[in-house]
């Protein structure tokens, strides 16, 4: 088998993250080691850099490369209606609960990637007839992927799995209702996304910029180690109104985080939590 590239050492990764911190003020030090190492190896393979030192020197000398680097190391695998039962619970319980007490709902997609989840949220709200009550912020660390999310244009072949998810979610329409097809792509109707604003934001170093009724941060913190998960969870907590909701990935858990006691579990299967203490 062809695996001649030597193992990436932790000391090399330490040097790399330090250079990035010094020059670009992004902090990858507390990313989960197993996946971060794999993402770096991926970059080395992709650009045919012979080792981490080569990558470091390119980053030191070519600031234009940094955005591309960030795009390649962040994981952008997502689907519309991923975990259909999660979206069903949102529609039947969580969103109605929020709207019971408010006339408006503010939602933050933290780590929105290419925007499938944002599109999904807007479809759910639209079907509930409450899309006009929503104010949605979608953020990501990766500029290129935010532009993709804004364009909301997806390969038509992806719509197959999206449609299957939608059927499992038991949507009241068909997914085709929300897009037009052109040149092998599904172009989501812009009217669906009118209440969404997109911005670049780094969960690790970014400031708390607003308060929300509902935050979705699903399968984002799995790329962080426990120290960083704690740090980010504190920020998410601060970004929620009291009695606001936080949704994380189905195989993530808050129980070992320091501020877990400031949340209660609303739905353990779908990992939906409610902030009960400031």
């Amino acid at each position, binding site marked *: 088998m062809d695996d001649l590239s030597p193992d990436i050492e932790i000391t090399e990764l330490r040097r790399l993250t330090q250079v990035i911190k010094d020059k670009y003020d992004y902090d990858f030090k507390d990313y989960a*080691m*197993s*996946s971060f190492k794999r993402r770096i190896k991926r970059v080395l393979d992709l650009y045919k850099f012979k080792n981490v030192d080569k990558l470091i020197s390119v980053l030191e000398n070519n600031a234009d490369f940094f955005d591309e680097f960030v795009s390649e190391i962040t994981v952008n*695998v997502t689907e519309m209606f991923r975990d259909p039962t999660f979206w069903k619970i949102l529609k039947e319980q969580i969103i109605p609960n929020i709207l019971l007490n408010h006339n408006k709902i503010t939602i933050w997609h933290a780590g929105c990637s290419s925007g499938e989840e944002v599109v999904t949220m807007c479809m759910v709200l639209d079907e509930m007839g409450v899309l006009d009550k929503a104010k949605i912020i979608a953020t990501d660390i990766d500029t290129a992927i935010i532009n993709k999310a804004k364009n909301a244009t997806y390969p038509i072949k992806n719509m197959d799995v999206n449609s299957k998810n939608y059927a499992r979610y038991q949507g009241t329409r068909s997914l085709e209702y929300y897009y037009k097809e052109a040149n092998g792509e599904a172009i989501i109707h812009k009217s669906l996304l009118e209440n969404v604003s997109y911005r670049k934001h780094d969960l690790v170093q970014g400031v708390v910029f607003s308060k929300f009724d509902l935050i979705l941060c699903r399968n984002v913190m799995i790329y962080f*180690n426990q120290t960083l998960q704690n740090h980010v969870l504190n920020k998410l907590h601060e970004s929620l109104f009291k009695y606001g909701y936080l949704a994380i*990935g189905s195989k993530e858990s808050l129980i070992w985080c320091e501020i877990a006691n400031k949340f209660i579990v609303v739905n353990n299967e779908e990992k939906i939590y409610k902030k009960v203490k400031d």
Partner: protein
Amino acid sequence: MRYNLSNKYKAIVIGGSAGSFQGITQILANVPKDFPLPMFLCLHRLKHVRHGFVEALSIKSNKVIAEPFDKETIKRGAVYLAPANYHMCLELGNTVALSTEELVNNSRPAIDLTFESASYVYRDKLIGILLSGANKDGAYGMMKIKQRDGLTIVQDPKESMINAMPNAALAATKIDYTLNVTQIIDFLYELDKLYKTA
């Protein structure tokens, strides 16, 4: 003793795909209840079906099987199954790390990622077992285990319902033992004894 064994090992990873269900259930039904090493199962499964697989594997199992949460601490003698639509990796510091990265070998979970990350953490103290399957997932992982002086076992291709996966591993790297499922169970028994007499 038929196998060249020691009690230095700290963990076992098991990979399987098409045709491996029977083998893995037999192994789980026969492994000693108090077998001390954690076992990590990465079995190809339907991406969008979250429920039912643990239950199906548990019916005859001597061991409790759980799908771990991200960053869950690894417990002695526990059995972990890679959850649907997540890669399952091992992390330094005795925890499991899940990931939604791209498919690898058209699979998520991918055996190569579980095996490679486990071999990085456990080095020569890891045993890799690869069962029946229809693609080459696991071959790279077995190679990494061998490179780091771990122990490698494949299900005998003659017994495997679909032998592409064991054969790919045999072609990729040195395999210490080619065994049928009954022999794999014997192997685990002998290993178990070493921990109890030590």
